[in-house]
């Protein structure tokens, strides 16, 4: 097995996730895209862990999973809140930061 096949797979997933983040309008969808990105990162970690024969990659992968869980939790809570306030989770309608 090549190192690159995993890395490139991760890269592809990552870019798809990026596209999702940029293109999607629905907040939940955006969160999902972010999950894609995180997973691609995980794949990288593990691939390198195998390559270098070290174990740290695994540890970090686990941490990332945990972080992702937390992030999803908070993110969805935010989405709920937003929805409750403005009956919509369409991101392009939230432009409070508009100058």
């Amino acid at each position, binding site marked *: *097995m090549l190192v*690159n096949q995993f890395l490139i797979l991760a890269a592809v997933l990552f870019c798809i996730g990026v596209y999702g983040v940029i293109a999607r309008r629905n907040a939940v969808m955006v969160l999902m895209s972010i999950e894609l990105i995180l997973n691609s990162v995980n794949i990288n970690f*593990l691939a390198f862990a195998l*390559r270098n024969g070290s174990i740290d990659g*695994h540890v970090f992968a*686990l941490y990332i999973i945990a972080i992702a869980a*937390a992030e999803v939790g908070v993110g969805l*809570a935010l989405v709920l809140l937003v929805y*409750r306030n403005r009956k919509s989770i369409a991101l392009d309608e939230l432009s409070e930061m508009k100058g």
Partner: protein
Amino acid sequence: MVAQNIAFGIIAAIMVVGALRVVTVNNVVHAALWLVLVLAGAAAQYILLTAEFVAVTQVLVYIGAVMVLFLFGTMLTRAQLGREKKLNNSTWYLGIPTSLLLLGVMILALTSSFGNEKLPTDSEIVSTQAISDQIFGPYLLPFWALSFVLLVAVIGAIVLARKD
């Protein structure tokens, strides 16, 4: 090794397709289900990478918990379960060049730096004990930090989502 390569190819193909569907499909629930597929594929890849424990965690946490969360979130925000117009925002087309550019850069970097370097094949499965030794040994401090993060996240989620 061939078997592994074949397995990788199939799984990878499935993952890519699934991922593409996730970001293109016009139905939130479907997207969530496609995402499940991708995550499962990822778990499979972890196994190929001799990371059993991680793969298991992936299945438990992600496919178990996270996806449930997603579905709940979807329900609670009353996104209609059927097809939905305008899941993409007005400037979605920006995503394509950006991500393609990014992909190009990464592949360029990867190929130039790793060429066709092989992964070690003789390495045995990483034992859960080894991982736990790492976590509770040198990585104890980050572990604590992480626990705090989770705690904060839980509290934060509750605070945010409370109705009052």
